[in-house]
């Protein structure tokens, strides 16, 4: 049915109208206008409902628990402290990422820093290190590396690319002509930078900061390994230890509310700040670079120190422990088993995600409208949920509603699908754009029937994009930790859970092979990102956002 929808554009729509016969049937027309692709629309709605299961079920369970129990859980001593600590960590890490990310972007794009192309790539690389791998690296190398400050350092180092990439892209893309105009109108260099340049890149910086804040709230790996009791860790602990799981539910709901508050706050902020579009279409020139002068060594040392901490420490930790870990008796079979599980679960997750993403992406590309836009937005809500919340909700869902699925890879696949659906939807929509309706129409006008057009035009053009999306989802599933911890079938360990288990008992050598494999896996999409955007030079960074 999807195939049918995918292969014809207007003719299929026309066919529906045909049933209304000649003349006009306004009811049909009205319905047709609201739901241009009935089959596609129904499939999309189903897909969105599936992805919304965790959120909806969380709400249902919390409501079922009843107010008295919720109130008891809310009165738990330490809850306020927990909230404040989570928010403080979020604020500190976001501020740190802003300093490092914006600073690096400015140095790399707008100054005569030596080796800036090298730093342009290096600054993006921390994306390839999952936070729990970074946490493990620091813990295993530095004695007594625990607590709030430790977690803040690790998270800042890991998350700064979220700010750096969009900021650098905006800086590289900002039209130097506007700055020249400001200078020509009598503004000095500093006034120009603040009044023109910074204003142009502010939306990019804000977007990056939002990503960091959401990430810190939902991060589980680093805070668990570095033993900072934030919401995610508290949810996990309270679920694992407590007999009364209402506490975990209430904590989850509160975390969801915090996440929503940040999202809504950003939306409101965005409404008041205008968006800046480049006016005019002249060829872009590279912007004028600021001469650093005596400050060059200082800037260079700063960037090198950040790179050393973000990449050097994990590299050193892996180098130190790797050979010991791999040569440990029985480790290879263990690693192979974990690898097998990781591949199976991630394949199931990617398959389900893409299955759900297909109708939503096609609907958005071929029948855009208010309905398609809303469905697309809804998929992002689950994406913004912390993995531990999605995992927890689905544990309850499995036990109480879908028991046959509980302890099977499918429930885990559902968690992956809820978390990573937007990645798949984006890929499908992008792929559909590769086969615009105009091409299919031209093909039909040349005498090929709908099926033939689908086979010879639509499939060859969209398959690569959909495949790339599936691969991206697959790799992302492989790195996921908290939902996997909660939902994996008993005894089935993955690379991520093995690393976590070994690290939590300070078996650093045993953890090393898993850490190395995970970094390798995560490096692939980062590398693709860098390659696809053109590798080096400031323009590179453009694709990064």
């Amino acid at each position: 049915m999807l195939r049918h929808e995918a292969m014809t554009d207007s003719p299929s729509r026309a066919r529906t109208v045909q049933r209304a016969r000649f003349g006009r049937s306004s009811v049909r027309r009205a319905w047709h206008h609201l739901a241009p692709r009935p089959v596609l629309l129904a499939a999309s709605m189903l897909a969105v409902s599936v992805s919304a299961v965790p959120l909806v079920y969380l709400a249902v369970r919390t409501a079922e628990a009843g107010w008295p129990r919720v109130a008891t859980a809310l009165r738990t001593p330490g809850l306020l402290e927990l909230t404040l600590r989570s928010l403080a960590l979020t604020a500190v890490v976001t501020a740190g990422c802003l300093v490092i990310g914006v600073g690096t972007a400015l140095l790399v794009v707008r100054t005569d820093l030596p080796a800036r192309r090298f730093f342009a790539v290096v600054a993006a690389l921390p994306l390839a290190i999952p936070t729990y791998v970074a946490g493990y690296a620091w813990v295993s190398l530095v004695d007594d590396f625990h607590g709030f400050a430790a977690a803040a350092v690790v998270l800042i180092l890991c998350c700064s690319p979220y700010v750096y990439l969009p900021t650098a892209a905006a800086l590289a893309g900002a039209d130097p002509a506007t700055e020249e105009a400001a200078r020509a109108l009598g503004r000095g260099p500093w006034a120009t930078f603040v009044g023109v340049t910074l204003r142009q890149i502010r939306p990019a910086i804000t977007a990056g900061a939002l990503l960091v804040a959401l990430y810190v709230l939902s991060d589980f790996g680093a805070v668990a390994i570095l033993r900072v009791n934030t919401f995610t860790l508290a949810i996990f602990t309270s679920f694992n230890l407590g007999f009364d799981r209402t506490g975990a539910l209430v904590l989850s709901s509160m975390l969801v509310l915090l996440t929503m508050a940040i999202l809504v706050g950003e939306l409101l902020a965005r409404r008041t700040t205008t968006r800046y579009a480049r006016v005019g279409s002249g060829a872009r020139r590279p912007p004028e670079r600021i001469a650093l002068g005596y400050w060059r060594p200082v800037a260079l040392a700063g960037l090198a120190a950040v790179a050393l901490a973000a990449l050097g420490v994990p590299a050193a930790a892996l180098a130190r422990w790797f050979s010991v870990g791999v040569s440990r008796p029985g480790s290879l079979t263990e690693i192979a088993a974990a690898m097998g599980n990781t591949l199976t679960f991630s394949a199931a997750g990617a398959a389900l995600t893409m299955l759900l993403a297909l109708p939503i992406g096609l609907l958005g590309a071929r029948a855009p409208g208010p309905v398609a836009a809303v469905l697309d937005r809804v998929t992002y809500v689950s994406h913004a949920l912390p993995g531990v919340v999605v995992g927890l909700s689905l544990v309850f869902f499995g036990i109480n509603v879908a028991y046959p699925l509980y302890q099977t890879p499918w429930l885990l696949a559902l968690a992956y699908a809820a978390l990573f659906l937007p990645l798949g939807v984006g890929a499908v929509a992008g792929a559909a754009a590769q086969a615009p309706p105009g091409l299919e129409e031209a093909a039909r006008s040349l005498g090929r029937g709908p099926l033939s057009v689908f086979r010879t035009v639509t499939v060859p053009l969209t398959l690569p994009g959909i495949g790339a999306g599936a691969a991206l989802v697959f790799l992302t599933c492989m790195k996921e930790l908290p939902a996997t911890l909660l939902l994996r079938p008993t005894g089935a360990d993955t690379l991520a859970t093995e690393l976590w288990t070994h690290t939590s008992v300070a078996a650093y050598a045993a953890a090393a092979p898993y850490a190395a494999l995970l970094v390798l896996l995560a490096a692939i999409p980062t590398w693709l990102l860098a390659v696809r955007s053109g590798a080096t030079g400031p323009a590179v960074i453009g694709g990064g956002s």
Partner: protein
Amino acid sequence: MTDLIVTGVHKHFRRRWRSGSSEHLRRRWRSGGREHSGRHGRDADGGSVHALAGVDLTVPSGLLVAVLGPSGCGKTTLLRCLAGFERIDEGSIRLGSRLVAGPGRHTPPHRRRFAIVPQEGALFPHLSVAGNVAYGLDRAARQRGRVDEVLELVGLAGYGRRMPHELSGGQQQRVAVARALAPRPEIILLDEPFSALDAHLRAELRRDIRQALQEDGATAILVTHDQEEALSLADQVAVMRDGRVVQQGTPTEVYRTPVDAWVGGFVGGAVLLPGVPSPAGVRTVLGDLALRGAPPSASALTVLLRPEQIVVGPPAPDAVPATVVARDFHGHDALLTLRLVDEAATVAARVLSAADPPSVGDRVGLRVTGPASAWPA
């Protein structure tokens, strides 16, 4: 005789969701080509656009007919209805004796044999030039060498192995035309195929495409908003306005004898003047003018002259005195804006550069050559 005959075709569109700025929407806009901007007649419920309001059009076999109209007049919708991408609400489309679309009948696009050449070529990016051209051919035709034949017709012999992205914009359009010609369709539909190209490239491509169409004996419809393109290229021009064809004829007919002042102004430069009937024809600020055909029976007339009908010379007793107020120089000719000395009126005149046109501020004398057209005001 397999002339294409379009009679009384109507097409309504529901108003689509327009808010939001999503990129797909704009993409769809471009590719779908439905001309939403033109909302000529709206239905009583206010929610639908009457894009085609009774189109009549005849395309004689073997000719190139240009459908000319301003953007939003419904010409692209007409093309999409002919191709079968849109379903017509009323009227009929016939090819000779065959009913292609009409009451109770809608031949799907792939059975119509109406090949389309989209605005930006829309070549299949995954197929070579030869693969694109062969797309609509059956095996027998491929083996007969039809691919090379049409590639040669469009001036791209030997390009078969190139991929579309290796071609320039003009070459891509040539391939798109070759691809449409290859299966010898009944009709070739050209959707503003030259609009995305540079001016100098456009003229050359137009000539070549027209020649290729003629040599292959193809019947074609060219949709365009460019009057110069329509007049220079087509055997016949059909002028569209508000979802109707208001005039169809040879380029000369449409230019010389437009059915109304609007058509006259749309197909070329126009000097529109008020006038009253007189024994010689019509009296205007430029004197008594001869009329083409019988004068309309009305006491007030709108008179149309072409700028090249106004002859600019030195002031003379029998000429209308005027002052040059602006001069737009075009190289081969110049367009003068002239204010009459005795009347509060401004007219435009086209003079050849070789005739050494006067400068701004010069006093000149105007004469009119050739008959004028007039309609009731």
